[in-house]
């Protein structure tokens, strides 16, 4: 256990900064500055993954952090953390990830959001939005980033994640996501395009968030509490479903067919059957129709 409230760790060539949970934010900022000062430019040029635990950060906090990193020639790369229920929306993350722009042009929320779109459209940012809530009085903008439909045809980047996502943890990425590990109940993975889970999917997976109707979700063991592809949603009829591993479980893939999410064996055989769940979808008529046998 180190006494510093900020831990520095190398992660795949990037720099992970873990913030102590208990330390007041103002002190953390001071510590960070002091530590970077004493590091004598050692971290210059590094991409920073900020690990904030259950801490609640405001946009102003995020800005302050970004300013300091920028001052020492470092850039934000990703944010990880967790909190009770809401997510820091990609919009607020993008303000972190975006290059600095003059203050006058970013005093309104909408500016920040349009700025965010640019960042995510480029699919350059590897974003791990954190589930968290702004402090009272300083709520984070709730608008989610819309990824342009045109993106569906652009070559998508892929984010490889090697860990199990536990309840309350969220990963969000504009390209494809490959996750080696499980997605536990209460955890969520959101990708602009395809999702491949080398493990059990028991939480929520949203593929094709960029409006890609051809997106699929692959899992070695498919037992989700909710699946979303594009604007189609299926959910299991019971809340809080915890599905355990069937040792006979076979890999499966979920995709849209005839306006319905279907799940079939993977690698694909001829047979494709509709998911036996309550189907609810934004195009409700489509979902109610039986899919092809």
């Amino acid at each position, binding site marked *: 256990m180190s006494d510093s409230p900020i831990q520095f760790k190398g992660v795949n060539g990037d720099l992970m900064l873990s913030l102590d949970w*208990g330390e007041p934010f103002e002190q953390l900022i001071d510590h960070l500055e002091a530590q970077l000062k004493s590091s004598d430019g050692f971290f210059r040029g590094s991409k920073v993954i900020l690990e904030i635990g259950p801490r609640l950060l405001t946009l102003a906090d995020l800005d302050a952090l970004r300013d300091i990193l920028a001052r020492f020639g470092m850039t934000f790369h990703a944010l990880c953390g*967790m909190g009770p229920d809401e997510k820091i929306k990609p919009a607020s993350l993008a303000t972190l990830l975006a290059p600095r722009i003059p203050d006058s042009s970013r005093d309104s929320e909408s500016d920040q959001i349009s700025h965010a779109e640019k960042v995510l459209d480029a699919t350059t940012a590897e974003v791990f939005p954190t589930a968290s809530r702004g402090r009272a009085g300083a709520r984070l903008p709730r608008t989610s980033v819309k990824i342009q439909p045109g993106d569906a045809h652009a070559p998508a980047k892929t984010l490889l994640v090697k860990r*199990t996502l536990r309840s309350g943890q969220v990963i969000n990425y504009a390209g494809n996501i490959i996750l080696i590990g499980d997605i536990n109940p209460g955890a969520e993975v959101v990708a602009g395009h395809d999702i491949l889970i080398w493990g059990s999917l028991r939480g929520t997976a949203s593929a094709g968030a960029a409006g890609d109707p051809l997106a699929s979700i692959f899992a070695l063991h498919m037992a989700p509490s909710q699946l979303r592809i594009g604007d189609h949603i299926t959910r299991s*009829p019971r809340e809080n479903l915890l599905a*355990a591993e069937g040792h006979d479980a076979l890999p499966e893939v979920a995709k849209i067919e005839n306006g319905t999410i279907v799940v079939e064996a993977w690698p694909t055989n001829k*047979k494709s059957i509709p998911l036996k769940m309550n189907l609810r979808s934004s195009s409700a008529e489509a979902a109610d129709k039986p899919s092809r046998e």
Partner: protein
Amino acid sequence: MGRIITITSGKGGVGKTTTSANLSASLALAGKRTIAVDTDIGLRNLDVVMGLENRVVYDIVNVAEGAVSLEQAWIKHKRVQGLYMLPASQSRNKNAVSVNDMKRIGQELKQKFDYVIIDCPAGIEQGFQNAIAAADEIIVVTTPEVSAVRDADRVIGLLENASKEKLQLIINRLKPAMVKRGEMMSTGDVTEILAISLLGVVPDDEKIIVSTNCGELAIFNPASVAGKAFKTIARRLLGEEVVAPRPVEASVNGAGVMNKLKHFFFGANDTHPA
């Protein structure tokens, strides 16, 4: 130097205090100088479970404030040689003890005891952070219920993020008959999701309630199956390889209730044509 072990859970009422009390006493009986520390400020009850309620004079807040020494505040158990208890405060505000206070108290206790067992409050607020601040090892307690497992999972995620690496699991209040009927998650169902090493399984046992009511620990009741399980767990903590007859490993056909539910939702016959 002793070991600091924090007992935590996420969800409330799953048996942290029961576990803390019984493990502490078992370790002391095994000849290890042990102190049980109650960090549930405002809801102190470890003293009650250990039958020491009427001897509380000072508490952990007094120690944190520097008003009294640890030696003045801790209570020596009369019946169990080498067993001590540091009570929580009943009435003070929850933030009266800081993470740094806990680290300091933990360090000091580690010099004086072989085992420091910290009973954590429910939730993931200040009290939780205090309780884990000084921990060398953590035991996560859950019951085999969906909501308890979900909260345990969340807490394990937080602990992993806080670089707490030595995490072990106790499943409490398992009802073998229910597991057999496929009405309760089995040990396998729970460990499948939580994926940390299993320290032990404690069956549901009515005698625990009798014990709690008279401040008599379950481990002293030879008829208590839960008491037996706690003794076994203590031996595992001491490094013994104990293969206890675990209540129920998996239900019939190796598939627990959750798997059955899943089959119901997904139509297993259809999705698994093979």
